[in-house]
């Protein structure tokens, strides 16, 4: 029974398995949004507009990938926004100290991965609840970013960096290529190796997973480290796009990412969820935000709509499913 439950919740690379109820609802919502957009403002859906608007989403989308896997194991990482700030500030300070760009970027990635690894050590080996660990590092990492930069922004990066953030290969923006590489690799690993099964198993029942020989601690360390690394990559993309590095970047990113993941149908209690759902969640949030701001120039309505959607979708799921808790 349990074995079957785990099997059916395996994460496929592509929506090979039938989409879940939550995913169908999201698809319908996205399509109706497109329908409304097409009716009110056909230009919104034109590829050039969509490609320009997409520059806003890649950082969120990148961080949502490891976040999905972490939540699958019944964990959480609240420190991603602060890690972004820390990596960005490290990169900025290296540039200010006349380091070569590549060296600064390498150090920023290293710092991000180390920040994630520290979370991982506390969660996996000291065995502190991930909510508490990452709540602490949420304050600590942003605090260090504020401390070492004294709150001052670094800007005026060379064109070569700006090109990395805003340039494109053919029609495809460079950040999109970074995202595609990460998502394809992750999806392949999840589908073609036992990793996806392991993550679900840890989320369902960690003790059982441990006894069945899964290296729970090592997997968790790796997940939190990759979350930190992905936050660092997003930070570089952000700095390249906005041409400024400051300690306040990424504020609130953690909650936006978690909203996208949960909206995509991943259970906050772990064990159940798919990357495909997260992609739909990210897409819905992104398109909704861009359209409301395109059409009415009102960002605040987006917040109300997304918050309501999050509550209603999980409420519907809870009311429609047979009693679990």
């Amino acid at each position, binding site marked *: 029974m349990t074995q079957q439950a785990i099997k059916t919740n395996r994460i496929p690379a592509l929506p090979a398995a039938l989409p879940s109820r939550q995913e169908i609802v999201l698809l319908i919502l996205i399509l109706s949004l497109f329908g409304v957009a097409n009716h009110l403002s056909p230009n919104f859906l034109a590829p050039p507009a969509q490609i320009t608007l997409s520059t806003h989403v890649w950082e969120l989308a990148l961080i949502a990938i490891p976040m999905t896997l972490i939540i699958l194991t019944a964990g959480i990482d609240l420190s991603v926004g602060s890690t972004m700030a820390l990596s960005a500030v490290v990169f900025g300070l290296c540039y200010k100290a006349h380091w070569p760009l590549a060296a600064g970027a390498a150090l920023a990635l290293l710092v991000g991965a180390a920040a994630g690894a520290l979370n991982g050590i506390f969660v996996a080996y000291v065995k502190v609840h991930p909510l508490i660990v990452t709540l602490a590092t949420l*304050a600590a990492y942003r605090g260090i970013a504020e401390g070492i930069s004294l709150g001052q922004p670094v800007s005026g990066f060379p064109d070569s960096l700006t090109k990395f953030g805003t340039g494109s290969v053919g029609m495809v923006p460079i950040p999109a290529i970074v995202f595609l590489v990460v998502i394809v690799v992750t999806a392949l690993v999840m589908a073609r190796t036992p990793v996806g099964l392991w993550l679900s198993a840890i989320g369902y029942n960690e003790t059982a997973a441990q006894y069945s020989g899964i290296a729970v601690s090592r997997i968790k360390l790796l997940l939190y480290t990759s979350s930190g690394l992905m936050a660092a990559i997003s930070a570089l993309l952000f700095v390249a796009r906005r041409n400024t590095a400051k300690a306040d970047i990424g504020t609130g990113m953690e909650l936006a990412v978690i909203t996208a993941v949960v909206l995509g149908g991943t259970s906050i209690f772990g064990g159940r969820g798919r990357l495909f759902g997260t992609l739909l969640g990210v897409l819905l949030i992104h398109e909704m935000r861009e359209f409301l701001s395109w059409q009415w120039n009102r960002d605040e309505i987006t917040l109300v709509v997304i918050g309501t959607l999050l509550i209603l979708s999980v409420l519907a799921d809870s009311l429609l499913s047979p009693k679990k808790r």
Partner: protein
Amino acid sequence: MTIHTPPAIPSQLQSNAAAGGGFFRLLKQREYGVLALLALTLIVVGLINPAFVAGGNLKDILVAAAPAIIVGCGLTFVVLMGEIDISMGALMGVLATVMGQLTSPSHAHLPVGEGILITLALGSLVGLINGLLVAYGRMPSIIVTLGMMTVLQGVNLILINGQWITDMPAGLRWFGTGRFLAVPISIWTTILVVAASIILARETPLGHRIYASGSNPEAARLTGLPVRPIKLFVFTLTGLLTAVATVVSVPLLAVIEPGVGKGFELLAVTCVVVGGTSISGGQGNIIGTVLAALLLSVVRPTLVFLKLGPSASYWERAIQGAFILAAVLLDQVARARSRRGKAGA
């Protein structure tokens, strides 16, 4: 402390009550740890700069800590039930805007008393909705309150509509700057809320039921404890206390703008957790939360009074984060020691 339970208590609850001695000794250790860190900070900084421990500054520290302590009391009960609430910061923002718009002469210009009553009612209502969704909608509280937080942020931006409120009436200002027996209103309010919360936790059947249902919800349900109404109560209480904190802290601000309450939810959760309340419910107390709130509030004045230069204040959050990690590590060590102790006995 005794847990009032019907005669046929399941073994789980019994064993929890029986383990009370060791369990409370452990809790005390955690409180003492935070207390020791707080006392050490006060003594060391006081020796370096005596003005730090002067009455005026201690009062300022208390006033600064008041919102976290007040909301922390409600949140402690929520976390004791094994739930969480992260909508308090956004709620505080909305309540500040509503309170300002209701009473300010350039907006609705209602009497201050009415404005405050509506603010308190609105806070309780939002808490009630959170509680209904969690208790009766069977939803995870982190999702409910994350969604609520997002909605409230949007509502606040829509309400405030780019116009900051700069003309809070004098009657409203009094709640921030007024005094009774030379002590600010916010400190009186804090003392009142803390005392009531301690009595609720220790002396009332409801408090004992909160502990019981948090430490083992299934057992609590089977013994006939009304777990859902209790959950509804703790979320509503947190909403109400968020409104109380808004009333006594926001009038101190020069203006009401969309940034009010930003990040407050994380501060409150941090206080509860650093104060020793277990995130999985059932263990913890109010005093720990209060001490943790004081410890975190002392960081900024410490940096100022040590005269480390203007750049020092940028390290406030880093130091707060380090305090949390230190408290968590201490807790793990204490727990490991108690496990060893049990194995030996």
